């Protein structure tokens, strides 16, 4: 592994999160859209989402969306201002903080539900 610094990891996470969200989006569109095949079909698909792996996956997707969104903002600021390049590192730590908070926040909501079994 190349021992790059913040910028390298920011890029890698941005790409991974982007692809992950895209993957999730594709599933999401398919499942939500599937109600045109009728209620039965729709509900069958949605019941599979209740499985624990899916619920935990959702945690990461939420954090990923937040990371990707705010890091996207960081990228835009870098692209259009000199300030952005100069403070990219600090901004990245800000983005990471927000993502972690989002992860914890959704965990607070989701974990009890998993444990509670509904």
């Amino acid at each position, binding site marked *: 592994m190349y021992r790059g610094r913040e910028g390298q990891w920011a890029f890698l996470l941005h*790409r991974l999160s*982007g*692809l992950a*969200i*895209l993957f999730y*989006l*594709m599933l999401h*569109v*398919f*499942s*939500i*859209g*599937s*109600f*045109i095949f009728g*209620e039965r079909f*729709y*509900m069958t698909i*949605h*019941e599979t*989402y*209740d499985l624990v792996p*899916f*619920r935990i996956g*959702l945690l990461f997707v*939420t954090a990923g*969306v*937040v990371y990707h*969104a705010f890091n*996207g*903002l960081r*990228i*835009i600021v870098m*692209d259009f201002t000199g300030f952005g390049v100069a403070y990219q590192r600090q901004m990245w730590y800000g983005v990471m903080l927000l993502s972690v908070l989002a992860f914890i926040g*959704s965990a607070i*909501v*989701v974990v009890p*539900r998993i444990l509670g079994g509904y």
Partner: protein
Amino acid sequence: MIRARTFTDARQQAHSNAELHWWIFMRISGLILMFLILGHVYMTFIQVSESDATFDAVVNKLANPAWKFYNWLILSLSLLHGANGARYSIEDYVRSRPNRAWVKGVFYTVIALLFAFGTVGLFSI
């Protein structure tokens, strides 16, 4: 041994603004998506689990044309944004020309189908 490329060689490079336009699109759509998606996530966050999105809940909400449009904007922008983002990755990681062509072909088809499917779904309620 290298033979230096000449002025004319270099000048003959093709010209197109496609990459520039995609680059700008990624930023603009990103900015808009930022509000749309964070709003969407926030609003649906209480549900959190997909099973909360029951048939009725979804149908009710989407009865409102404003929400229809909101969701359709998310659908189209994020599919385009995501598809172009994935194209970047494909062009980076799929190095053989023929492979790249069919991977891209399959991928774009899937995106287009999903887009059609989602749109039909949204407006058929």
